[in-house]
């Protein structure tokens, strides 16, 4: 059997493409969680981003407006979450669930008029270079700007958290809101900002799905990716670089399905589709078994409300 080396390159590139939404949403959620806030609404924010991006693209015809509009939609919907959890001090888990249920409903409501409309072609960069280098060509070139941004994001996030002053403030707020507050840091403001940033990234992740990855609107098209993104944050032990590894594993599982079917492996399609979810559970178990390690890397105040008496 002769395997074309460029074919392997294409498979790797397709794995990377399916990892993009996971990386974007996880990196956003990672910042939110690092500030001590657990937002379980990722799935809801993603689907809102997906319909907003697609709808704006169809109505305005502008890809730039659509991409930024999707991010703004993610910010707006996460503002509800931020207001509830930070200003009204509601429970993070319940509020996040409400956000997901609400988001799925609203997106389907808006999306009713956009079902079946074909998407637009999204421009790719460096298309001409694709065939110049064997194997690496298809991996490195010919992708959308969002794709490149996603693969840079874990490194940017890591740099931000470790090397910048604002990153330090975010970590301080997540690890010890009391002492951060005593240092004169406005805990609530920092957490608001981190929640809205998470919303923007989830919105972008959704827009990537509906505008670039499968350019069309399908109800519920995020299909649990938001939840996998949440699991990836635990998998990474809150380290952005490891998100990259996790997202590639899950991207790989998604892509393997298609190829296994193509070469005629006789495994029920449902089993292959269930694989990413089952692997998520197994990975969570393996990572969490060491409770000391988890405790050391989890932001200490994660999911706990902070209220300062005035």
């Amino acid at each position: 059997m002769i395997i074309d080396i460029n074919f392997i390159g294409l498979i790797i590139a397709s794995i990377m493409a399916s990892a993009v939404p996971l990386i974007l949403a996880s990196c956003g959620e990672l910042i939110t969680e690092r500030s001590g806030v657990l937002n379980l609404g990722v799935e809801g924010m993603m689907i809102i981003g997906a319909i907003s991006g697609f709808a704006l693209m169809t109505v305005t015809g502008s890809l730039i407006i659509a991409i930024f509009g999707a991010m703004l939609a993610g910010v707006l919907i996460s503002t509800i979450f931020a207001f509830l959890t930070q200003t009204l001090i509601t429970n993070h888990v319940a509020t996040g669930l409400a956000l997901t249920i609400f988001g799925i409903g609203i997106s389907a409501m808006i999306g009713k008029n956009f079902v079946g409309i074909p998407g637009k072609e999204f421009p790719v960069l460096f298309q001409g270079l694709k065939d110049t280098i064997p194997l690496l060509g298809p991996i490195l070139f010919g992708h959308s700007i969002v794709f490149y941004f996603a693969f840079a994001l874990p490194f940017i996030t890591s740099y931000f958290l470790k090397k910048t002053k604002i990153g330090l403030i975010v970590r301080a707020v997540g690890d010890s809101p009391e002492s951060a507050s005593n240092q004169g840091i406005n805990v609530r403001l920092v957490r608001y900002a981190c929640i809205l940033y998470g919303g923007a990234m989830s919105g972008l992740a959704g827009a990537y799905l509906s505008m670039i990855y499968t350019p069309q609107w399908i109800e519920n098209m995020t299909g649990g990716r938001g939840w996998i993104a949440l699991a990836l944050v635990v998998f990474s032990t809150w380290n952005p670089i490891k998100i990259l590894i996790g997202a590639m594993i899950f991207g790989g599982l998604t892509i393997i399905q298609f190829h296994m079917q193509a070469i005629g492996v006789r495994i029920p399609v449902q089993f292959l589709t269930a694989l990413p979810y089952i692997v998520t559970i197994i990975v969570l178990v393996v990572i969490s078994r060491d409770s000391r390690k988890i405790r050391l890397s989890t932001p200490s105040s994660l999911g706990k409300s902070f209220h300062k008496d005035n």
Partner: protein
Amino acid sequence: MIKIVKRDQPSRAIFFFTPVLAIFLTLVAGGLIFFILGFKPFEALKFFFIVPIADKYGFSELLLKATPLCLIAIGLSFCFKSNNWNIGAEGQLTFGAIVSGGVALLFYEQEGFYILPIVILAGAIGGMLYASIPAILKTYFNTNEILVSLMLVYVSKLILDYLVVGPWSNPEGFNFPETRQFSDSAKLPLLFEGLRIHAGIFLALAAVVISWFVFYKTYLGFQMKVSGFSLKTAKYAGYKGKKMIILVFLISGACAGLAGVGEITGPIGQLHREISPDYGFTAIIVAFLGRLHPVGIIFASLVVAITYLGAETAQIFMQIPKYTGQVFQGMILFFLLASDYLLFFKIKFIGLKK
């Protein structure tokens, strides 16, 4: 001037008032959304909340939808009271339905009084088995139960899909994704001629009574309350945390499994692809809206069940998309959580002082 003051103690009166406030605010916001969409808000709300339950048939449908919601929410309240975030009831419902459906198919074309109890029991066991996965992983492997129980929802639906398309599909069914019809002995009896309401409602009512007894009359109920209030106190008091976590998950799984039994052995009488319109997720809202109190959950399940019916009616009569139901459900939870602020804080209106 407005001043916000922290209450010394959460107000008990407001504890039961805020769900009503949340429902009212949801109606207002819903009317606003209808207005934005270009409908007459009052007319739309009427089609949503009054028309569907105006006749005998509608009322039966209301109870039909409220039954699984109530049953699952009762189970979830055991978990939520003790600080266990089981959000995968939808998966436990599906797996319970698979197991009980499998047993019902074993009795294909057989009759006998003993069949139905076995089918019901199988559903409860199925739900318990499925709920035990996140419980055991949480207690012995320190794994986050939220993510595990949720991932298992997707897995259960794919198992169901595999079974009804593949090995369990009706051989005379022209490849429709559904099983054979269960025999009459494996079906829950209908209560009234011409209406779809079935005996499953008694399962829900039994769950309400039993849970009330456990919560308020037993040591276990007390332990759950303490653990929910403060895990440290529970540990200090020497409660066996692991045993309790597993127990509440099993109870909650059994309830969800029973809800699954009701869905397939009730009016439908077979397994098919979509046995539940996300009852397992909606029940989370019901549990909160009912304040994790058995009686509260009865009322909450009726209120939330209307959103299902209303969405269907509004779609037929006004072409309002049926997802509006979900939007309403999300809003109820948002407003409920938000109005809980009044539990802990008092808003005082103070006149300007000179």
